[in-house]
C-alpha cells in the first residue's frame, strides 16, 4: 500500500503533477480494445483509477457493466469533488460476482472551461443504475455538478431553496443565518 504513488494533492501544486506516462492497467487495456480512450491516473490505494472524457462516460460504464468478463455491475458511490482546477465526478465500481474486481472512474471538468454562472456538466448514469439517482442529486446539491439526463435533479440534503454549493472551496457560509437579530435567522 505504501508504495502506491500519491494522488495529486490539491493544496500542493508542485506535487500535483503526476508521472507523465503511467502504464495502461488491465481495465484501461480492455477499454482501448473496444475503442474507448482512457487515461490512467495514480492508483487510489491499490485500486486502478482511470479518467475518461465526459462524452465517453456513458459508453465506458455501459461496456464495463455489461461485458461478461469484466462485469463491474455494482455502483458503490458517486462523489463530486471540487479540486483546485477541476470538478471531478468519481465513480467507484465493484462487482457482485467477483469481489476482487474494483475500479475507480473519474470524469474531470476543467474549471476554466465552465462559463461564469454555469455549472459543470457530466452525463448522468441513472439510466444504468438507479443507485446513481440519489448520489448524483447529492453531488449536485453539495458540489454543484449538473448531471445531464438525470430524471429529477433537485437538491436532496439541503433545503430546496438553498443558495450556493456548500462543498465548493469558494463557498461562503451564510454568516447572518446564525445572527439572532436577523429576522431570517435559523435560531
Amino acid at each position, binding site marked *: *500500500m*505504501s508504495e*502506491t504513488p*500519491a*494522488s495529486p*494533492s*490539491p*493544496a*500542493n501544486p508542485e*506535487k500535483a503533477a503526476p508521472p507523465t506516462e503511467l502504464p495502461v492497467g488491465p481495465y484501461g487495456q480492455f477499454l482501448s480494445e473496444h475503442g474507448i480512450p482512457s487515461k490512467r491516473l495514480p492508483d*487510489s*490505494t*491499490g*485500486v486502478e483509477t482511470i479518467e475518461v472524457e465526459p462524452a465517453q462516460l456513458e459508453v465506458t460504464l455501459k461496456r464495463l457493466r455489461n461485458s461478461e468478463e469484466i462485469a463491474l*455491475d*455494482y*455502483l*458503490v*458511490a458517486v*462523489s463530486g*469533488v*471540487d479540486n483546485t482546477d477541476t470538478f471531478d465526478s*468519481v465513480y*467507484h465500481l465493484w462487482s*457482485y460476482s467477483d*469481489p*476482487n474486481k474494483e475500479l*475507480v472512474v473519474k470524469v474531470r471538468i476543467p474549471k476554466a472551461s465552465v462559463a461564469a454562472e454555469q455549472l459543470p456538466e457530466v452525463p448522468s448514469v441513472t439510466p444504468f*443504475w*438507479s*443507485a446513481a*439517482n*440519489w448520489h448524483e442529486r*447529492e453531488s449536485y446539491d*453539495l458540489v454543484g455538478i449538473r448531471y445531464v439526463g438525470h430524471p429529477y435533479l433537485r*437538491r*436532496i*440534503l*439541503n*433545503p430546496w431553496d438553498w443558495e450556493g454549493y*456548500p*462543498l465548493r472551496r469558494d463557498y461562503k457560509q451564510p454568516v447572518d443565518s446564525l445572527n439572532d437579530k436577523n429576522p431570517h435567522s435559523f435560531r
Partner: protein
Amino acid sequence: MAVNVGNDQLKTDEMIINMGPQHPATHGVLRLLLTLDGEMVRNVEPVIGHLHRAQEWQGQNRTWFQYQALIDRVDYLSGMFTSWALARAAEHIEGIKISPRAEYLRVMVSEMNRITSHLLWLGTYLIDLGAMFGFPFYPFREREKLLDLLEAVAGQRMMFNYIRIGGVQCNPPLGWFDKLKRFTEEFPDRVDEYEAIVTENPIFLKRTKGIGRLSKSVAMDYGVTGPTLRASGVNLDLRRTKPYSVYDQLKFEVPVLEGDGDTWARYTCRIREMRESNKIIKQCIEKIPGGTTEEIRKLGDEANKDENLKLMAKKQNSGLRVKAGEGFAAVESPRGTLGCYIISNGSDKAYRFKWRNPSFSNLSVLPELLVGHPIADIMAIFGSIDVILPDVDR
C-alpha cells in the same frame, strides 16, 4: 384490502398527503410525500435532509483528531462502524498495519455493536407493527447489558470514539472479558425467547409474510446492501466477500435467504445475524492475542514492547495527520456497506470526505417497495429495511 362497494364505476380522486416529518415511526425525521388512491399507495417521494448536519463539510473544516470524535454521530446506533470505516480509509492511505490484538478488539466491539443495533431494531420494529406492550423490553434488556460493556471499554454508551486511526484507544477494564463471556453464553437462549414470541406469531406473520417484496434485480440496481440485500438472495457481506481485519480467521456463516425477500425474510436474516455475531465474539475471546486484560497486566512492560499487543500505531494528539493521497474503504455495518472516500493533501485536515452510507442507498428503494400496498403497511415495510435517518442525512 380494497373494499368492494358494489359499484365498479365509482371513481375516486387521488390524494397527496404528507407523512412526517414528525412521525413517531420514522425513527428520525423523514417526510414521505404519498399519493394515495383511497387506502392504496400509488406513488411515494421520500423527502430527506431534515437531519442534515453537514458531516462532510465538517470533516473538511475540522482536524483529523476532532473529526474522529465527531463521526460516531453519523449513525448513532453503530458508531463503531463509522469510526472503523474512517480509520481503515486513513490507514490505507498511510499504509499502517494494525497489530492483531487491536484488530481483534475492533472485531469484538463492532460485533457487540451490531447486536445492540439489531436488538434496538427488533424492539422498535415490533412497536411499529403494534406490539406496544411488553415485547420491546426483552431485546432492550440484553441491549443494556451490551451497552454497559461498551461503556466500560469506551467511556460512552453510544458515541464511542474507541476505534481510532492507527488502532484502538485502550484495553478493556479488568473483568470485562469475563462479563462478556457470560453474556455470550446466555445470549442464544435470549434470542430463542424472542423467537418464541415473534417468529411464529400469527399476527406477525400476517403483517410481514409476502409484504414488501424486493426482488434480487431491483435490490442490485438500487445498490441496496446489508441484511436487506441478503434477504433477497444476494450473497454480499464484506466480512466474507472482501475479508478485512481478522474476519478470514473466524468461523461464521452469512445468512442468505432464497426467495422473494419480503419483510419476514429481512426479520429472519437479522435474527440469524445476531446469533452469528455472538459466535464471532465467543471466538474472539478465545483467540485474542495476549488474552484478557488481567493477563496483559501480568506481562507488565513486556506487553508494551510486543508488536502483536500494541494497541495504537499512531500518536493521538491534535497534530494527527494523514499522508497525501486518496483512498476508499468499506466495512459491513449492521445496515450494509459503509464506505468512506477520503482525499487527503497531507495537512491536518482532509481535503474531501465522502460517505457512502448504507441507509442512504437502502432508503432510495422505498418507492419500489411501497407502491401498491395499503397505507397500513408503510411502517411495516419501512421499518423492515432498518434505516437510520441521521445516517441518511449526515
